[in-house]
């Protein structure tokens, strides 16, 4: 049996969490190409914790108390259902990755980006994977075509360069900061 408590059981928990817990930011890397998503996660993570045919889950340590968890998976429009909604609640945001060199990829990914954006309204970065970021078209042209929502940003990414991938992650973190703080 418990003793009576006052009506403020929320206490000062957040400080205690920071002191005693590893703090985690969870990010999903989604898009039509699972292999690209895999490359993204593996290229940047210190440790790949889980890899299956459908998912790669890696950890990127920021410091002693902070860590990023990256989930690379193939997610399609028809999978956005209440089950995924619950999972989505746990995420800092999405990175939607697609292959810039596939002509059909941009058209294929657009409805998905729209749906994801409408449905979750959480920070999102749409990243076009290219061989060389210098070959990419100016971003302003792409933003017109994509007509991205406020919670989404477009960028390019070279999957062979960890720095380029971190740039995408940093863009997402920026989005998070701008959205919530």
């Amino acid at each position, binding site marked *: 049996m418990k003793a009576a408590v006052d009506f403020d059981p929320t206490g000062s928990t957040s400080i205690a969490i920071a002191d*005693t817990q590893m*703090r985690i930011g969870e990010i999903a890397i989604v898009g039509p190409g699972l292999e690209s998503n895999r490359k993204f996660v593996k290229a940047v993570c210190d440790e790949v914790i889980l890899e299956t045919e459908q998912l790669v889950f890696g950890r990127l340590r920021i410091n002693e108390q*902070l860590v990023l968890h990256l989930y690379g998976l193939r997610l399609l429009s028809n999978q956005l259902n209440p089950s995924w909604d619950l999972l989505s609640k746990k995420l*800092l945001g999405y990175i939607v990755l697609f292959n810039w060199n596939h002509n059909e990829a941009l058209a294929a990914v657009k409805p998905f980006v729209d749906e994801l954006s409408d449905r979750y309204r959480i920070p999102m970065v749409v990243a076009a994977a290219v061989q060389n970021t210098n070959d990419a078209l100016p971003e302003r042209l792409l933003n017109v075509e994509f007509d991205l929502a406020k919670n989404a940003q477009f960028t390019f990414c070279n999957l062979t360069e960890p720095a380029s991938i971190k740039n995408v992650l940093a863009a997402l973190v920026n989005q998070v900061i701008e959205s919530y703080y």
Partner: protein
Amino acid sequence: MERKRILIATKIPQQIQDLRAALLANGYEVKVVDNGFVALQLSRDFRPHLILAEVELPKIDGHHLYREIKAQSATQHIPFFLLSKHRSVEERVHSMNLGVDDYINIPFDVNELLLRFEIVLKEIARFESTAASVSKGFAGKLSDMNVLEVLQTLHIAKKSAIIKIQNDDREGLIFFKDGEFIDASLEQLDAPSALFRMITWAEGTFRVELRAVDQPRIVQNATEEIIQKGLLFKDRWEQLSRMLPPLPAPVKIGANLEKQKFTEEEKEILSHITADARLIDLVERSRFNDLKALQIAAGLFTRGALVEKPAAEVQENGKPVNGRSNHHHANLANLIVNFLEQKVGSPNNGHAERRRSERRRMERRMRGRRWSDLSAQQNRVYLNQSELLMIREKLLEKRSQEEDDNFGMLY
């Protein structure tokens, strides 16, 4: 009080004279007809509460009469007893297979038949009473509408109601009067603790009974304030929970405890460890409020003073637990794996179809809700601003360093 009406169809009315007399003596209204056709007409006009019909009837026999009555929405609810002189098992089985409520042999014992009538009619009255009470409220699963959403609904609608919340074998009550939360009860807990524990229940059911509430107001805080605190509480509860093994997971003391120093609060939590203790037990048995207890437990997990019991040990005890995670931080990964496995599923079997059907049903229901509102409410940033800035700085710092390195290699 309305008298119960009994319709009897028999080709030889004299054989049920005693029954008719007994029914009238017991306050029933009785009509006796000698053919199936008239019985069918009276089933609508007389609106009987129960029909007793002989199998062998002129014009429409008992079996056909039963089918006709059950085929019409106005009469299909009426309990139907068949009466027959045939004592063959085949005839009885055939009649019962049709779905009749009872099969009576002639001759019969009047008192026994009266008793059977009473039992059926009471059962129907009880069912109707339950249905009526449910119709003055609503019910559902906590996975579809959580406790706080129920409270918000009643508060906005300014309703008086008693809400029953069930989770496994536990049941709690929440009392609302004119849209204000006034009391809650669950086991031995005081009202605030009872409410907040129920807020932590993600699974279970709720039943809202809209009715006048005479309960005195135990909780004086404004309902808006309670709901706000509830939201904050739930948020922090979920935040902590996702860093821990599942709450029903069995736990045990970790190794090398002698090297560690514990606060009095930590000792209190550890004192509740038993051979079959689960994480949720430590939280609920402690003298602290649930959130504080979970927070202390989280600290103990981080230090390794408290660990999840390995699956092998649990199974040895004969108490396997579902949804266990060996890696504390892999909870979301496990959820995603489960999610993906459901999607690629296997063969198109009945179970898979049921799952798809359930998903479609949920989606239809959710479509009616405003996604933007839900998202705004549900998406939480679990990291604070300084932590996010730290992450960004680290990402950019490494990038700059790598760019410098590349620059160095070129020159």
